[in-house]
């Protein structure tokens, strides 16, 4: 019943979500908002993986490569968010700012 929706719709939706996430990562001033943009991009990638598993794999029950891959992407996103936010908090405690533009110690 579900295959009335062509694969293209999911890909366009994932592309749109990816671009919104990229825009969030590039244009936001607050470090936590940048991390949120990255989470959106990772979600867009997951939608593509699952869409290709559902439409592309010959036997979706036995060969669930897409789902397993998406599961590992989720795990990685969680670990990345944990360490990234720890960094943001450490920077906030030492430099009292989370504004990405003010954290430019390496620029000489």
């Amino acid at each position, binding site marked *: *019943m*579900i295959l009335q929706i062509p694969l293209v719709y999911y890909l366009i939706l994932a592309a749109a979500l990816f671009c919104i996430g990229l825009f969030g990562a590039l244009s936001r001033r607050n470090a936590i908002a940048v991390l949120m943009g990255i989470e959106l991009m990772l979600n867009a990638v997951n939608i593509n993986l699952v869409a290709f598993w559902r439409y592309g794999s010959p036997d979706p029950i036995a060969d669930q490569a897409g789902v397993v891959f998406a*599961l590992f992407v*989720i*795990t990685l996103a*969680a*670990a990345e*968010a*944990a360490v990234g*936010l*720890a960094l943001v*908090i450490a920077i906030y*405690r030492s430099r009292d700012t989370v504004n990405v533009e003010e954290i430019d110690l390496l620029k000489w």
Partner: protein
Amino acid sequence: MLERYALIGLFAFAAVTFPIVPLILAFLFRPKKPTRLKQSTYECGIEIQNEAPEAESIWVQFRVQYYIYAILFVVFDIEVVFVYPWAVATNQMSAFWVIEMAIFMLILVGALAYAWRKNLLEWV
């Protein structure tokens, strides 16, 4: 397989309207007499000092302890996500089924032991 989730969608829609109805009814029935004193934030009696410059004095700083609990929670939440497919996996006859999860869990017990040794878990 999808019909069940259509019903869950119906349930979600009903679950959202379920709390809104009493809120609207209450909005109609309750008395509305806001006064300056009633509207001040609740400080159990003492006069609140919201000085003009940083009206944000209300935000009190927090120790990092909360964030460490959040990290531990994320790590063990992901472990749980891998425990459930293993628990219902079909090849449950072989000994490897137990050994694989034993390795997975022992590494994470190591993580808990590390947190315990570094007394991360203390409520400082």
